[in-house]
């Protein structure tokens, strides 16, 4: 498929929600994709088809439906393996989303590997989901949580990492591959090189990156990787944790229950093989199937084309927004280091007021702290407005956004 504005515009017909209007009959302009994306018919239909034709519990029953359901569920695991280049499907664990994935690592790995005095390193631009689980763990273990700082261009200050690694006490370095507020693409290569040299494992929060660019886990070389289905056209409530097998084999179970066991006796239990040891209970089968359809859809477009389209949109949006008097954009303007996320503030108008006024024009943007209060403190702001793009967004939608800011300016007499 060609990466032109028109070929991407053609995709819009697959998304029923994009046909609706909001407020006073205004066409919906959905620009909150860093939060969650809309779903194409292919995903919605796959879930309906699963429930209408194949629904059964997986992995144990011998009848036809159970076999079909198991096949559909496990097919998504294989799709994920080839989508982000994982050689061993046993390393892929289905979870509810990135938040659960990180909590699983903090609980099932962290509690047996982190001791008093150890250091876990995260960054100032993390989502709360990559901060709070580590606060809980380090508090419990009397360990320490340290931060890689963010510079004025919205990039990580890697000298901070050098200093912390030099203590020799670091047991894990965790970072997002793309900031959900600034859009900064993390220099993962450099971080992982440094960590490998120090013998420290790394965890990557891929929630913002995987939906928007080609991600290759073999090339990345990290040890833990987490992402969510709903930010990449899939349903809510399904995500992935990948863990390098040599580490996964040292981890205790997260939840105890059905499907994660081999044999259960009155007082002891042996665990099921990987990855099932970490998938206790009946999983979210239908949404795993829907997630598979989302991966098929993105694979057909090609992730390099997705990235190209977003570079085009983001470049256009930064240019247009930069021309709005009184508007300040946060983060780097170097598009090679930035995904399709633009956080901004408009004069002295609070982001909530900006978002509410342009909601009247049918535009959905986010306002607030974006679950990144540590970063808000660093930027010295209470909140920002955030527009974030995906495959179905167009330049004319960005024009609607930019024009709507005139209404904000008028209301607030800027």
């Amino acid at each position: 498929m060609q990466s032109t504005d028109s070929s991407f515009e053609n995709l819009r017909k697959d998304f029923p929600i994009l046909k609706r209007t909001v407020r006073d009959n205004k066409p919906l302009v959905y620009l909150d994709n860093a939060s969650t994306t809309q779903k194409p018919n292919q995903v919605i239909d796959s879930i309906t088809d699963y429930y209408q034709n194949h629904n059964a519990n997986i992995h144990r029953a011998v009848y036809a439906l159970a076999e079909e359901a198991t096949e559909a569920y496990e097919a998504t695991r294989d799709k994920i393996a080839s989508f982000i280049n994982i050689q061993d499907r046993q390393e892929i664990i289905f979870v509810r989303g990135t938040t659960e994935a990180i909590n699983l690592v903090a609980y099932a790995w962290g509690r047996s590997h982190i001791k008093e005095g150890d250091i876990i390193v995260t960054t100032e631009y993390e989502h709360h989901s990559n901060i709070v689980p580590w606060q809980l763990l380090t508090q419990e273990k009397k360990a320490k949580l340290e931060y890689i700082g963010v510079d004025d261009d919205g990039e990580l200050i890697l000298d901070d990492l050098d200093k912390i690694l030099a203590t020799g006490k670091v047991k894990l370095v965790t970072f997002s591959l793309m900031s959900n507020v600034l859009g900064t693409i993390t220099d993962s290569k450099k971080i992982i090189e440094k960590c490998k040299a120090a013998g420290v494992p790394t965890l990557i929060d891929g929630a913002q990156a995987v939906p928007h660019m080609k991600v290759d886990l073999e090339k990345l070389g990290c040890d833990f990787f987490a992402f969510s289905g709903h930010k990449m056209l899939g349903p809510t409530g399904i995500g992935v944790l990948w863990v390098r097998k040599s580490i996964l084999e040292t981890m205790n179970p997260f939840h105890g229950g059905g499907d994660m066991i081999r044999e259960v006796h009155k007082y002891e239990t042996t665990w099921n093989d990987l990855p099932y040891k970490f998938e206790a209970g009946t999983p979210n089968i239908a949404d795993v199937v829907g997630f598979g359809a989302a991966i098929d859809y993105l694979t057909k477009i090609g992730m390099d084309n997705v990235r190209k389209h977003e570079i085009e949109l983001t470049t256009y949006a930064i240019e247009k927004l930069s021309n709005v008097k009184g508007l300040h954009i946060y983060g780097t303007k170097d598009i090679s280091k930035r995904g399709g996320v633009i956080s901004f503030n408009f004069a002295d108008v609070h982001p909530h007021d900006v978002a509410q006024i342009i909601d009247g024009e049918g535009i959905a943007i986010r306002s607030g702290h974006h679950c990144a209060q540590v970063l808000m403190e660093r930027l010295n702001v209470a909140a920002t407005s955030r527009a974030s793009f995906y495959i179905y967004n167009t330049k004319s939608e960005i024009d609607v956004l930019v024009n709507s800011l005139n209404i904000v300016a008028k209301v607030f007499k800027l």
Partner: protein
Amino acid sequence: MTGTADIYHEMIIDYSRNPINFGEIKDHDVTFHDSNPLCGDSIDIDMKIDDNKVTDIKFHGNGCAICMACSSVLTEITKGKTLDEVRKIDKNDILGELGLEHLQAVRIKCALLSLKVVKSALYTYMGEHLNDSPDVDKLKEEAANLY
């Protein structure tokens, strides 16, 4: 149905630009802070209380236009009232004053944050000064059920 135009009228914009009773009271008798976890709005209210009357009240912090306007109106309403009268201030007293009766649910929290802080400050003060009063528990409940 609340159109944007209905909400962002002259009075709201004026109050948000030039809030009244904005600032701190250094020798306050009671102070309280609260924030809205959803949006990061953050309000502190200081009160001076003499003879069971609010003789002075000021607020400071960060918030959207709705939050700032409502804080201005609330502090104006509160000033000079007896503690019992402050207790009876209802959310509709604030929303009505600014024509915000039909504010959507997510923004109601912006509008009423400062009222929550005033009620919590009042509870704190009464807790400290009216120790065994059965009123304290009731007041605590009132503050919790505000929205």
